[in-house]
C-alpha cells in the first residue's frame, strides 16, 4: 500500500512549523519527496545484500514477520513487474517500449511457442564475454531448454537515444522479464483558495496531478524523517537536520543489527 503524499506533507509541515521555523512550498516538497523516495529505494539493495548474509550464514530467523531479508524483499513489490519485451528485427534483440523506466532486470523467461511442445525456459543473463564462451562449448551451447542472453544497447526508431537491448540465443517468440521499475515521482498537486492558500488536489481527483509515494506504507516514518532532514537544510536549521539524522540512523541500525 502506497504512502499518501498529503499525509507526509502535512506531517512535515506540522513538525518544521512547530516553532515557526519556516515553511516548505508544495513544489519544494515534491522535489524533496522525489529525492528521498529515490534514496530509500536505493538503500534496499545494499541493505538487502547485507541482511542476506544472515541467510548465507544460516543465522536468519524463520519467524513470520521478523525476517529482515524477507521484509526488505517485500518492500520491492510496488516496483516489481513482469514486462513483455518487443523484438526488433534490425538489431536482432528485444527492447522495452512500455510504461515506466526499468531499474533492474530479474528473471528472464523465453517462450518458444511455435514448437511442440512449447518451451518456457529460464534464461541465463551473462556478460558478453561469457556469452561468447558459453556458445562456443558444445556442452553448454544454448538450446530451447537453456537459452542465454546478454545486454547491450541500440537506437530503435522512433526513439533517438540508445536504449537497453537484450539479445537471446536461441531467439524466442516471446520474452518476459521480471523487472524492477524506478519509482514514479510523488507530487503534491494543489489549487489556490480564495485566501491564496494551497488546497490539496487529491490523488485521482479531476485534473489532479497528485501522485502518492510508491513506497510501502511501512516507509512512512522514513520518508518523514528524511524529508525533514532536507527541509532543515532549506530553512537553514541545524536542529531539524540533527534530529532527523538521528531518527533516520536509528531506524537503519535497527534493521541491520
Amino acid at each position, binding site marked *: 500500500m502506497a504512502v499518501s503524499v498529503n499525509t507526509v506533507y502535512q506531517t512535515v509541515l506540522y513538525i518544521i512549523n512547530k516553532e515557526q521555523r519556516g515553511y516548505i512550498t508544495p513544489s519544494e516538497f515534491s522535489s524533496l519527496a522525489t529525492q528521498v523516495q529515490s534514496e530509500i529505494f536505493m538503500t534496499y539493495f545494499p541493505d538487502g545484500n547485507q541482511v542476506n548474509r544472515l541467510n*548465507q550464514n*544460516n543465522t536468519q530467523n524463520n519467524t513470520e514477520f521478523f525476517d529482515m531479508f524477507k521484509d526488505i524483499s517485500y518492500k520491492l513489490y510496488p516496483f516489481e513487474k513482469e514486462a513483455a519485451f518487443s523484438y526488433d528485427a534490425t538489431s536482432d534483440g528485444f527492447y522495452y517500449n512500455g510504461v515506466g523506466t526499468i531499474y533492474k532486470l530479474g528473471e528472464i523467461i523465453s517462450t518458444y*511457442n*511455435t*514448437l*511442440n511442445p512449447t518451451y518456457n525456459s529460464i534464461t541465463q543473463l*551473462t556478460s558478453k564475454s561469457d556469452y561468447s564462451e*558459453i556458445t562456443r562449448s558444445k*556442452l*553448454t551451447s544454448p538450446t530451447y531448454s537453456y537459452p542465454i542472453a546478454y545486454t547491450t544497447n541500440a537506437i530503435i526508431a522512433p526513439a533517438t537515444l540508445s536504449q537497453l537491448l537484450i539479445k537471446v540465443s536461441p531467439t524466442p517468440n516471446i520474452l518476459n522479464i521480471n523487472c524492477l521499475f524506478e519509482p514514479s515521482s510523488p507530487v503534491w498537486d494543489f489549487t489556490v483558495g480564495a485566501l491564496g492558500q494551497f488546497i490539496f488536489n487529491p490523488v485521482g481527483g479531476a485534473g489532479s496531478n497528485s501522485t502518492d509515494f510508491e513506497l510501502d506504507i511501512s516507509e512512512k516514518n522514513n520518508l518523514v524523517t528524511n524529508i525533514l532532514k532536507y527541509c532543515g537544510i532549506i530553512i537553514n536549521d541545524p536542529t531539524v537536520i540533527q534530529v532527523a539524522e538521528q531518527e533516520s540512523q536509528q531506524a537503519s541500525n535497527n534493521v541491520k543489527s
Partner: protein
Amino acid sequence: MGLITETNQQYYQGAQGFLSNQVAAGESFSTTFDTDLVFGDWNPANADYGLNNFKLYTSANGFPGTYAEYLLAYTVVNNTITFTAALPVGTFVAVQLKILNGGQYGQTQIEKAFGDTVEENYGSYEYIKLTDAIDNFMVGYVGDGKLLQKAKKSDVLFFAKRSLQEFSYDTLKSIHSQELTIPESLSVIIPQDYVNYVRVSWIDQLGVKRIIYPTNNLTTSPYSTPIQDTEGMPTQDNFGENIEGTSITEERWKKANDNLLNGQFANNIDELMYFQNAYGFEGSWNWGRQYGLDPQLSQVNGWFNINERDGLMSFSSNLAGKLIVLEYISDGLGYDLDTKVPKLAEDALYASILYSIVSTRSGQQEYLVQRLQKDRRAKLRNAKIRLSNIKLDEIVQVMRGKSKWIKH
C-alpha cells in the same frame, strides 16, 4: 504429487480420449502423454503426414469398432490439438500414439497407427531426464543457506553433461548395440555415437552369442600407408602431401586362413604342412608351437580390430556373411533422447555436479572439497553396485553349479 502422470490407458495403449462439447469451430483438446506429439501435417496426401507420431479418430457413440480416422484439418501446438471445423457435440475423439500393433481404433490397416512411439515410452520410469535432473539440482543444492549460494546454469549444465559422460563409460549400463551382417569386405562402419566397444559377438543358428575377440598382437591396421619410392622415401603429390596406398597388412589379414592361427589346422594336410612351415615360407604360422596352445588365440569365433584410419571395424575372414552383435558404449549425449539418467544413479549425478562446481571454485575450503569428493565417490560406488543388477537368488543359482554350499 505423484511422479506418474499418465493414466494406465495412456501408458499401455498410448491412447487418450476426449468428448466434444463445443458447438463452434476451433475446439481444442490437450493431450497429457509423457511423449510430446510430433505433428507434420493433418493431410495424409502430404508427405509430412508421415512425420506424425499419432493418429486422430472420431466416433459418434464411442463404441468399439465405430471409430474412423479424422481426415479434416487440425493443428497441433504445445500438445494441444485444435480442430479447424466444428465437431458435432458429443463426438468421441481419440488420440492414438503410434504403436507396433496399430492400436485399437483403426478399422483397416491403413487407418491403424503403426509405429513404435508407445514402445519407446515403455520403461521410461526407470530414467530421469537430464533437464529434470538439472532443474532438481538448482532447487535442492543452489540458493541462500546452501553450499552453493549461487551457480550459473551453464556451469551446472556443463558439469551435468560431463558427469553423464563419465558415468556412461563405466557406471551406467550399456544400452547401445547393433545387429549387423559382416559383408564380403569384412568391415563395418563404426556406429555414429560409438565411444568404445563392450563386446562383439557373432550369433549362431540358435541365437547364442559367440564372443569375438580383438586381434591385439595378431595384426594391426596401420594409420598411415605412404607409397614409397625405391629408396624407401614416401612420395608426394602435386600438393606436397604424401601419397597414401591401401594397407597390405590388412589385405593379408583378410585373406588369412584362420585355422593356421587358432590351431584348427587338421582339416586338410595342406593346413598341417603350412602350420609346420613345411613349405618353407617366410615366417611361420606356428603360434604356440613351443609353449603349447595360446589361449587368447585358440578359439574359433574369430577376431576383430578397429581400423582408426578408415573408421571401420574389421573382422577375420571366417566371419564373412555372419550375423554379429556389436555392443558398445556412448557418452549419453549423442542424441536428445539419450540424455537420460537411470534413477539408480540420480543421487550420484547430483553429488558429482556439486563436487565438480565446488572443486573448481576459488577460495573453497579444502575440507569441504574433500568431503564432497568422498561423498561423490561413495554415491558413485553405490550407483555402480545398484546398476550391476546383483540379485542374491541369481548369484546363489550360479554358485550352486560350483558345488558350493550357500546359506541364504
